[in-house]
């Protein structure tokens, strides 16, 4: 697509006005009209300044800082790829990569599959399940910090912890566990909490997708004697895939950036077992003041985000007219 060039300023209105504006111009006295470029500057200037300060500058600066060794307020020393070499030889960071992968994938898979399944079931009785959908959807509206807080109280190791009490109800006291205090279970506890809050969006998107399927399609299937389960398997599930795809993308993106829930529930611990890359960069830069090292970890996170966003970026760029 051709870029509108500076000549647009010389030809006010360009092709859109040429078709109608030329002939039907009313005989009113013409007042001086602002050119498109001048108007665009007025309308866009505050936006471009704010966007520049809070997106473009930080983006460039993060990449720049990742090549420097910065200790607190000391003078930055250029070390080339030194931070990246250190990152990938740092066992803590390699552990973080695994944690990030496990956390991101499991949170997304669990939340989207529950949301999708519930949306499918709700489709058989949209009216009767309205209140139930609202209940599940409500979890999605709870602040992430509060989600973390709620689940801390469920995973509490003492008698008031809901999960442990529930387990001992079945006479399995051996399974009572300090879920958030054990490096082996803490990550899964966070996954469960994040997935709890993440079901709302897939549910909404998948339900909207199945509701937009024309009724006639379903009626035809029932006429042909299809059982409800077959309708679900062969019509509803395939036709709701666009909703699933979007939900997977959003939840992947959300889990990759996760910070609040990890900060609230475990603070990355115990023994750094629940640190994802998004948390690692915070810890290194904001609590250890290794800004360059933290910036390098952020660049790694950024690359991961860009890789999973490629389809979305292509779609948006092509659609930007």
């Amino acid at each position, binding site marked *: 697509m051709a870029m*509108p060039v500076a000549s647009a300023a010389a030809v006010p209105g360009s092709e859109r*006005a040429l078709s109608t504006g030329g002939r039907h111009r009313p005989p009113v006295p013409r007042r001086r009209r602002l050119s498109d470029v001048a108007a665009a*500057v007025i*309308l866009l200037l505050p936006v471009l300044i704010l966007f520049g300060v*809070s997106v473009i500058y930080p983006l460039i600066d993060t990449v720049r800082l990742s090549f420097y060794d910065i200790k607190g307020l000391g003078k930055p020393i250029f070390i080339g790829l030194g931070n990246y070499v250190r990152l990938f030889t740092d066992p803590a960071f390699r552990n973080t990569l695994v944690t990030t992968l496990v956390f991101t994938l499991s949170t997304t898979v669990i939340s989207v599959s529950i949301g999708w399944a519930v949306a499918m079931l709700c489709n058989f009785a949209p009216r009767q399940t309205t209140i139930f959908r609202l209940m599940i959807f409500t979890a999605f*509206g709870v602040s992430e910090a509060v*989600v973390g807080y709620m689940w801390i109280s469920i995973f509490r190791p003492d008698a008031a912890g809901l999960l442990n009490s529930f387990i001992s109800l079945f006479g399995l006291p051996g399974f009572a566990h300090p879920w958030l205090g054990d490096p082996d279970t803490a990550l899964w506890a966070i996954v469960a909490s994040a997935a709890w809050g993440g079901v709302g969006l897939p549910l909404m998107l998948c339900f909207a997708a199945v509701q937009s399927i024309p*009724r006639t399609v379903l009626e035809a299937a029932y006429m042909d004697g299809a059982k409800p389960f077959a309708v679900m398997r062969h019509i509803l599930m395939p036709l709701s895939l666009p909703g699933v795809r979007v939900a997977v993308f959003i939840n992947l993106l959300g889990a990759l950036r996760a910070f609040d829930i990890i900060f609230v529930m475990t603070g990355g611990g115990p023994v750094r077992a629940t640190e994802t890359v998004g948390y690692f960069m915070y810890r290194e830069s904001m609590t250890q003041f290794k800004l360059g090292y933290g910036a390098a970890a952020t660049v790694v996170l950024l690359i991961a985000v860009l890789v999973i966003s490629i389809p979305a970026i292509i779609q948006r760029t092509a659609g930007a007219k």
Partner: protein
Amino acid sequence: MIGKTPRWTIAIVGVIAFIWIIPILGIIVTSVRPPQDVTLGWWRLDTIRFTLDAWFRVWSEYPLASAFVTTAQLAFIATISTMLLTPAAAYAFHFLKFPFRRLMLIIIINAFVLPQQVVIIPLFQLWRDLGLLDNFASVLIPYVGLSFAWSIFLVKNFLEDFPKELVEAGRIDGCGPLRIFWHIVLPNSLSPIFAVAILQFLWTWNALLLPMLYLRTDVPLPVLLTRVSGTYELNWDLRSVAAIVTTIVPLLVFLIFQRQFAVGSETRTGAKE
């Protein structure tokens, strides 16, 4: 729908839904029962006593009221700013011709993928050098600046279906680009602007990372909650009240404006094709 509604599907969905609200139920019940009654769990029915004691005491125990005011101020200013600036930019991108228009648009609408972790180190240094740390501007600027990545996309998407005849008519009547925006496009684009406002309000109210790093004295509710829940006191009743106060406003806004939220988040993320 069509005659056959298997009952078991409703039952399954119902069970899941009840499991889903247990955590929410938990903090509500904990907040209205005396702490000594819930040491074995908020669901225990040994002694049933109702008290609003924690609801009265929490305001003097924690600076919850001032945090509420801070949060409301930040969310309000950020939401209004985004509501005013976004439609202006979306209009310019959609109806005006100027150099680098498409390039700027592509950069802005693709920035929605950026995690907020990207901004924290550079802005931390910048605010420190400018002496802006602990100033509301240090969080308001990124709140508004980051919102453009999705808000402009959302409003511009709406403008794709905007009747061109209206704009043409304005032009023929001698309106300049600014008057067309103010008198024709803006009054007819209130629904996407409203959706933008809801999303921005929820996001800024719930924000934790940026205010935690850039603000010290007047902190918003999520930051206060993390400070409160990090202590090892056994005041689960007070903390539960703090958690409810933190999330009640965005939760209500979210539930009341579900429709706008759905429209907004679908367009925001490109679900609408």
